[in-house]
């Protein structure tokens, strides 16, 4: 067993919990929408959102699954926010994501994120051995309502 596989195996079951220090805020929605180039008025126009059954604008759905806004800390030399624990110590590449959305996220939601390492496994393909890490994140608001779930698969090369 490679050292990396050994190291990663020990992370299975580890949970890291982050509590955002403030409400997510409407400007976060607009900034994400701008980065994607997605000017859907559901994310920016309260009257439009209300005319389609929401109490206010909603977050672009995938924002919560990719933002680190809820981590209240400094960054390291690689540009990663400090405090991600076992989730942020290694440079991996993304194999894929599965998102599940349970309700729209509004600007006054205060996010709690619970990340858990679910699985580590090794696969041998044409380019040699790869180690896969499956991590699940569940996102809640201040009323402990489940907002979204992100199941993320990253991969690592043992020789790296």
């Amino acid at each position, binding site marked *: 067993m490679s050292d990396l596989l050994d190291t990663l195996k020990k992370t299975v079951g580890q949970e890291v919990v982050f509590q955002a220090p403030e409400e997510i805020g409407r400007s*976060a929605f607009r*900034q*994400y929408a*701008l*980065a*994607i*180039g*997605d*000017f*859907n*008025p*559901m994310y920016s126009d309260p009257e*439009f*959102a209300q005319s*389609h*059954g929401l109490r206010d604008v909603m977050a*672009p*759905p*995938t*924002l919560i*699954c*990719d*933002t*680190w*806004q809820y*981590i209240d800390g400094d*960054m390291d030399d*690689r*540009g*990663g*926010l400090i405090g991600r624990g076992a989730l942020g110590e290694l*440079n991996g*590449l*993304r*194999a*894929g*994501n*599965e*998102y*599940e*959305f349970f309700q*729209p996220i509004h600007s006054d939601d205060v996010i709690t994120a619970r990340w858990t390492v679910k699985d580590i496994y090794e696969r041998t393909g044409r380019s040699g051995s790869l180690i896969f890490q499956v991590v699940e994140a569940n996102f809640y608001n201040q009323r402990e309502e489940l907002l979204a779930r992100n199941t993320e698969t990253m991969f690592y090369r043992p020789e790296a």
Partner: protein
Amino acid sequence: MVTQVRNSGNIQVGDELTPLIKEIGMARMMAYGAATWDFVRLHYDADYVRDLGFDAPFVDGQMLGGFLTQLVQDWAGPDAFLRKLAFRNRVIVYPGDTLTCHGVVTAVSAADEGGMVECELWAENQHGERVVDPASALIRFPIAAENLRIDK
């Protein structure tokens, strides 16, 4: 921009989503990193990524999820709620690439929560390589189950 309202009663298996084209540039990549509080140098620092063996800074794979969501939501309209989105990243996306996101309806069904539509999605670069494949979405439409017409 949302221009139409759909309901799942007039959606059929085989319907194609209007393709969405995205030109990838460093400025948009930088904007995405800032918007997600993700400052990792992989996505903007050319010297840093060359030392790690990559040709150039590359797109955060989750940005593709944002593009696929736009593809789906623009087609489905503002009354539809995206319940699930899944995607596998296959080919690294670099600045200068032009991506085209595609989708096709694979299933229409009735559930307690509404009319449910499943789509198969994918994204190609300018070389015809599928950078995301497979991918899928599950969309909920606010329609009473008894009003849903399901084509067999």
